[in-house]
């Protein structure tokens, strides 16, 4: 049973229980809002996406978020992904600081949303909640209520770790109105509120050299979206027979040699199954898992289907969408 939407003291307690204290990583991370916390609107289609390297389900709140989760998981530089991440209202350490990858780095601290809101002359806009009058420690006290960001992505390469913040809406125009007023005629007040919200999040993360990107569902190529969604299914599951794991590397090498020949995908899978003595299902699993994990590079901007030819990579998705994951300026 879902609870009421909007800020409340009980929700504040719940968010702090999930995300307060030392940041958690990998399978231990819990989003501030998970599916089922609130009754989602009838038309929304939230989706749980399993991520084997993280060992947990990633919660995509709406159908426009799921392609971005798939794209992020497809990136081999990604080492963690925090969806529905609480923005700390008080000064806090950099989001990376508790991770072993950041050992020895001097990372800036974040001022917190209260300080940023004050800088923007919008302290009165910051949500506050009051504790109930029968609270054992803080009866009737007022507390700030945290904002929640969409996705904080953590990347790592030879020059060290970095973060990127993604805010996702159905339409790019939605960044100019609040969620509440999305079906109403636009007003100046509502627009100011929405712009304050996004400017605040942007400045909050800029303190830690983390760039914020405003993205909309349709900004990813449609063919790439559907390919990643289908191939993710293979990546997130186990093979039919465990012995497929033994020939995985060999088979991947063989697939790599076959890709430039532009063959029908199913023909390749069938031949691989006969050659390496696995089931066709497992041969398929190894190829599609390899495509998602980027060990086999194919053109994902064309339809990838069993009855069609498989083309070698023409354009790398992370070159086309490279801006979205690039390191922030110090």
């Amino acid at each position: 049973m879902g609870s009421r939407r909007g800020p409340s003291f009980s929700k504040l307690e719940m968010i702090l229980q999930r995300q307060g204290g030392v940041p958690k990583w990998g399978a231990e991370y819990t989003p501030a809002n998970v599916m089922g916390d609130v009754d989602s609107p009838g038309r929304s289609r939230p989706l749980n996406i399993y991520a084997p390297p993280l060992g947990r389900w990633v919660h995509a709140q709406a159908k426009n978020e799921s392609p971005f989760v798939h794209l992020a998981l497809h990136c081999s530089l990604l080492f963690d992904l925090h969806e529905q991440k609480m923005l700390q209202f008080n000064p806090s350490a950099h989001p990376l600081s508790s991770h072993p990858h950041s050992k020895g780095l001097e990372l800036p601290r974040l001022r917190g949303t209260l300080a940023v809101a004050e800088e923007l002359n919008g302290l009165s806009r910051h949500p506050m909640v009051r504790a109930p009058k029968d609270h054992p420690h803080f009866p009737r006290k007022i507390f700030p209520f945290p904002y929640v960001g969409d996705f904080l992505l953590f990347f790592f390469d030879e020059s060290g770790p970095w973060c990127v913040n993604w805010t996702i809406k159905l339409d790019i125009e939605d960044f100019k109105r609040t969620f509440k007023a999305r079906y109403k005629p636009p007003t100046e007040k509502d627009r100011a509120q929405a712009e304050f919200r996004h400017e605040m999040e942007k400045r909050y993360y800029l303190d830690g050299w983390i760039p914020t990107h405003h993205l909309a569902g349709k900004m990813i190529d449609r063919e790439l979206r559907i390919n990643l969604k289908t191939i993710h299914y293979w990546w997130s599951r186990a093979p039919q027979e465990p012995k497929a794991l033994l020939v995985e590397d060999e088979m991947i090498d063989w697939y790599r040699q076959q890709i430039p020949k532009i063959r029908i995908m199913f023909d390749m899978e069938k031949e691989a199954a006969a050659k390496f003595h696995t089931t066709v299902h497992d041969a398929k699993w190894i190829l599609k898992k390899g495509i998602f994990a980027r060990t086999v590079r194919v053109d994902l901007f064309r339809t990838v289907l069993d009855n069609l030819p498989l083309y070698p990579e023409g354009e790398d998705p992370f070159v086309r969408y490279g801006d979205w994951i690039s390191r922030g300026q110090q």
Partner: protein
Amino acid sequence: MNIGTQVMAKDGLGELNTEHPYTFLKTDPASGWATLVEFTTQTKGRRVHIHRLSRDVFLKAVDTPAGEQQIIVAPEQLSLPPWLSSIEGADLDELDLVRKGGKIPFRARTEQRYGYIAELLPRLHEILSAKNPFTIINAHARAMSPRQNRERLAEWFFAYVCYKRKLIALFPEFPNIGTYDKSDPKYSNTHFGVVSIHLSPSG
């Protein structure tokens, strides 16, 4: 006339009746047959029927001047098999994208069925020229591992061949689930939940 053209026999011809659309597959000069396919729904499930006419009779029925043809190209060419007519014009990928989750993506489901018929596809002309096309298909169904139901395998094979070799023709009959008449008074207190994505793909 190409493989997959849907035709109708205006006044009936041989075993063809006037109402059903038939899908043209092949005229074979060697055997002297013209092969047409019909998909029907019977009490025991859906079936595929092969109709064979003499090639000369068929060509004569088609090649006469307009207005006098016994076999005409159906005015409405369906892009999907009859059991999927409720999503005619829909895009399988779009349905997959707006889906809430689901164990298996629709694409993977159709790909699995394609896997079972893939070996039959290069043998299309051999199958159509055979005395009984179903012998070859049934033998293939038995040889598959796991063993396949022969009626279903025949349906997948002919649906794929007749509908432009698109994987959407292999899509299971999900769109028709729950489409019974809900206006009956006995449902007046029933809460029906979210509308199926097949009926409102915009989500």
